[in-house]
């Protein structure tokens, strides 16, 4: 997994409330930026589709290095932007909680981690494409790799600050113990980064208008750089 999902009971009630309030504030900002209750129908439908695809893809195992699951949250950020992406990951976490992929009480903490991924995925991709003129593959790969690395540490910090309920270990010791988990997540994140790079190249080749939000007025990619895209299924 490129993500850490915490189950109910991992944190004490105080920390559940704190992380939930922070997540609510982030979602409120996202809703405000989207225009409150007047979100256009197309955006609603696109966000819902991203939720459905993200949720479906997470159930598929890529037969690489013994089997890897991905969530593609940075990709959702690249495609729909940080605000709509934040709403999408919140709903993904709600669906996830329904089947035990993260707890109901942990939706706040898990959403903060995912919002970081969506936010960094979008802005790093945009910066690399618009300022550095980097290729789609490289931009998406780098944006995803950085987003997932940072989010792995955000998850680690959240767990270390909150402490695991029932454990007598302090924050520092918990942080040190869970560093292995962060390292494993970062390694898996690199696989997701490669997949995201290919997906963005693929989308850019056949529907480049879907990347307009992250690329702005960027000119279409040349055929040379698009050759990175492999087999089209």
């Amino acid at each position, binding site marked *: 997994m490129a993500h850490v999902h915490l189950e109910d009971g991992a944190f004490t009630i105080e920390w559940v409330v704190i992380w939930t309030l922070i997540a609510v504030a982030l979602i409120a900002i996202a809703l405000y930026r989207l225009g409150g*209750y007047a979100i256009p129908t197309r955006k609603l*439908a696109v966000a819902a*589709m991203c939720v459905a*695809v993200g949720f479906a893809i997470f159930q598929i195992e890529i037969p690489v290095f013994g089997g890897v699951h991905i969530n593609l949250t940075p990709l959702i950020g690249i495609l729909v932007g940080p605000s709509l992406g934040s709403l999408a990951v919140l709903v993904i976490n709600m669906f996830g909680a329904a089947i*035990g992929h993260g707890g109901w*009480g942990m939706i706040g903490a898990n959403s903060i981690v995912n919002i970081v991924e969506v936010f960094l995925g979008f802005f790093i991709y945009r910066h690399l494409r618009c300022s550095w003129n980097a290729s789609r593959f490289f931009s998406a790969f780098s944006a995803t790799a950085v987003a997932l690395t940072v989010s792995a540490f955000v998850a680690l910090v959240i767990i270390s600050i909150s402490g695991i309920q*029932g454990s*007598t270990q302090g924050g520092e010791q918990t942080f040190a113990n869970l560093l292995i988990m962060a390292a494993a997540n970062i390694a898996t994140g690199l696989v997701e980064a490669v997949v995201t790079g290919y*997906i963005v190249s*693929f989308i850019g080749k056949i529907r480049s208008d879907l990347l307009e939000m992250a690329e702005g007025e960027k000119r279409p990619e040349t055929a040379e750089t698009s050759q990175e895209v492999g087999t089209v299924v």
Partner: protein
Amino acid sequence: MTFFAEDGKSVVHRMNPWTKAALLAIVILMAIIMDDLILLAVLYLSVLAFYAAGRLPIRLLVGWYTLPVFFVVTIAILLIFTEPGDPLASIEILGKRIAITDAGLMLLVTLLVRALAVVTLSLALFMTTRYSHMAYMVSRILPRPLANIFLLSYRFNFETSDEISDVVDAVHSRNGNMVRGAAKQTRLFAGIFGLSFVHAFERAERIAKAMESRGFSGEFPNVEKLTKPSHYGYLLVSLAILALVIITYSRYVSDLIGWW
């Protein structure tokens, strides 16, 4: 899940969805607040009995447990060796001896029971509540934009999952699952996922146009409204709240249930 929710006729299916949702919220709080393993086990067994009363298959539940067990173990496995306590078993790795302690094992088991209690009730709720009732509750609980995304994606999930599994089956039937190197496999699955996203966007655009042409005003109408819980429903929720208050008081103020 939808099949059981729409076709089931058990007592849990007939229970008012608001009552089930309230019980889920209370069980989540109980799982977070309780710290006694025996009480947590009682909570888990009660929830399991509720699930069984819904005539839902246990085998399916065991399958669903894979995810929460995986997540709990991922976190706890790194702590059970370093939790202070009496060593139960030890192994030597690279000249260094590490031991599982009793406190570490207890931590793992407690986290598992907490997670499984909530997951079991969550699944029971979703597998015994019809979509129309779920849609009504979601539209009442969540802010409108989030409720709209939730309700739209609830339906899209089925179509998208079917479409992606069809493409994966097509790949497998053409020997696509044979080992051909990490790069080729990654590129192959990236193509599947990329295509899924493109199809999803195209479908979303069509659906948005269809919704607008039918006069969508930003809110989905609820065809079937939910009634209030029955007296028994209120009684059940009240008893659960009372238990939650006692558990909370006992943990944070004064131990009322430590006698046993």
